[in-house]
């Protein structure tokens, strides 16, 4: 644990963005964007361990940004958590179809968000281990 894990966050609402920032910045290195386009660029640039994207954003929404990231071989390994005020099943479906790894509904509890983030990191860790084990055998 020498270096802090990197997380890119994106939301067009400044206070939500700052709430995310304040929730995560104690544990992680946080990079923020205010729309999808910016987020994609920021992910490509920083190659974070996780991207948390708001669904409803101007310019490019979170679903599109997620799709773009998952299509790009360079960024497709970056896990994505979608964040939205909408909690409907269809939205969640859309989210998973776009390749998102998890879904967090607004308003969110910072503790829950942290748990979700850690959960994702554990999963990534497990996957890495399995792949390494396979390589060894």
């Amino acid at each position, binding site marked *: 644990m020498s270096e802090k894990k990197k997380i890119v966050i994106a939301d067009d609402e400044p*206070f939500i963005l700052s709430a995310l920032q304040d929730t995560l910045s104690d544990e992680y290195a946080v990079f923020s964007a205010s729309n999808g386009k910016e987020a994609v660029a920021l992910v490509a640039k920083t190659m974070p361990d996780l991207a948390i994207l708001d669904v409803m954003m101007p310019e490019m929404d979170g679903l599109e940004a997620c799709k773009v990231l998952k299509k790009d071989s360079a960024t497709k390994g970056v896990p994505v958590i979608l964040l939205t005020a909408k909690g409907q099943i269809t939205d969640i479906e859309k989210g998973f179809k776009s390749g998102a790894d998890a879904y967090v509904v*607004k308003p969110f509890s910072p503790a829950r968000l942290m748990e979700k983030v850690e959960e994702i990191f554990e999963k990534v860790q497990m996957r890495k281990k399995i792949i390494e084990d396979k390589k060894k055998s």
Partner: protein
Amino acid sequence: MEENRTQQLDTAKVFNLRVWEGIQYKLSSVLGIAVKVISEDGSVITDETNFSDFFRYLHASEKGRQVLEIKPEELKDAEKEVKVYAGLKYLFSSTYFYGKKFNIIVGVTGKSEKPQPLLSEISESTGLKYEELLKAYEAIEVVPDEKISKLSDLIVDLFNIVVELSVQEHITQSANKAKEEEIAKMAALMEASVIINSTRNLDQLLRIIMQSAEKVMQAEASSVFLIDSSSNELYFEMATGPKEEEVKKLRLKMGEGIAGWVAYTGESLLVPDASQDPRFAKRVDEKTRFITKSVICVPLRVRNQIIGVVQVLNRIGGGTFNKSEIKFLEALASQAAIAIENTNLYEHLEERAEMLNKELKDAMDKLGFEKMRIESMIKSMDDAVVAADREGKIVMLNRVAEDIFGITAANSYGKPLADVIKDRSILENYKVVTALKSTAKNEVKIKRGNKEHIFAAVFAPILDDRGEYAGGVGVLRDVTEIKELDKMKSEFLNMVSHELRTPLTPIQAYSELMLVRNVSEEKVKKYADIINKETQRLGSLIGDLLDLSRIESGKGLSLAIEEFDFKSFLSSVYETFRSASAKHKIILTMPDKSEKIKADRNKMIQVMSNLLSNAIKYSPDGGNIYITMTENEDRVYVSVKDEGLGVAKGDLDKIFEKFYRVENEKVKKIGGTGIGLPIVKYILELHNGDIEVISEEGKGSEFKFYIPKVK
């Protein structure tokens, strides 16, 4: 028959005198004997034939003939005997025929030896000459007894043969006569039945029937009575004869008179002499001055029910009717009854037909009216209606259907649905109706003008009276607007939910961070500030929603009017929003002079905050936002201008409609409830002001409003 024949023999009509007289003459002239036939009662059937001068001489005078008369009583027991008359012995032979005795003198068997006293007596009583009588008497040839006896047997046999032949001849004749009568009766009956089937005029019918009855029965008059069931009286339905008119005015009570009796008992009646019959009603004769002698009266029956009577009166030339004629009249009466029943039936049928006809006509009129009404209703409907028959050919099409399918009714009638309507989903719907005889529903998209409209299409089978499939009818309702409203509603709910969650998210996040994490005092201040701002935002959003619901429910908004300086008001608004967005620069321009207005301060804050947050929201790439205040003598003008996305031309007049949100992908990604601008406009109108928008897509928007100054 036996009795009849005897009666006829009694009247001596049967006996063929001409034949017998011929025989008798021949016998007398050849045999020289006297022959005479006397009936039991003493009446002479054939006179004596004798060619002797004595008889001839006596016969020449009236008194001489009386001498030769034989007294009936003297013949009583005679069978074959010799009697002496006028000094002559005669042989009498008797014969019985059908119980009656006939006495036949056959010849003279002896003469007196001394005829002088007798002859002088005859001469005295008759005035005939004694000498002549004597001379003739002496010349009489006497036939010996034995010979006479044999002759008498022969003569009796001959008489019997003649009588028998006569009777046979008579029987044949009367049989022929009866046959002729029978034929006449049959003809009358035939005629009656022919008439019954050829005419429906009851009076004429009965008249013809009764006239033929009169003719056949040789009657003076006839009549038909019917029973009036309401009064239980008999009235003359038809009367022939000389007193017809008078008769027709009369009525008989049930049981009154012969007709009444027959109607009452149902039995045919032959009255040979009406004046002697206690049942006879004299008043009819008295009224009509007709003299009823003999009557045959029979009942008229229709299906075993007596409906009246038929009577025939007085044999022409006197005499009475006989029993065989009852049968004939009964047969005729049954024909008349059929005629009456037929006529009644016919009349009844005619009435019924007329009634049905009227009912049908009424129904048709009503139907026609109903059809017209329904047709005009369907024609003027806002929904498209199209109907097809069993074969799928169009039978009806209303104006809206013409419009949406781009066809005309005139060109479409009788054509298969598939040839005229191109929309596949409609045709498939129709197929379902045809195949399953059940209703089919779906949504159909049809282009109307430039816009695609959504129609709710319902196809239903048309069933006839017997519940059999007779075709299908389709109704298409334009639900585009409803669909749009529905879509707007769900979008609105989504947006409201989003808009409420947006400020709630930092509030929840920061309050939790403050509670759970050990945050510095500096951070606490920052968090609390954010919570406060977002709470205000949430409050104003809820305020907007409440305002909307007040406006919607018709309660309206109430204003708390106060007088305040508009310049300082704008300045404070500016201060609040100045730091709301890092990307935007708000530039406020105001005149030097301070202007006071009368308004609801909070509502004016609502207006400004709506316009400014819109300006920020819809210019996501940032830019300048200009707040410019101008004035004229009466009004204060405020313009809020941004450099953002702008509004498309088609949306300009709709953005003040509630729930309206621009159909633009870029704009849609930006949250918003679609209620802000409508409330702004409403508030300004309440202040006697108004608002307008000047915008071009991609080139920013300018919202410009005014409110009146204080006077």
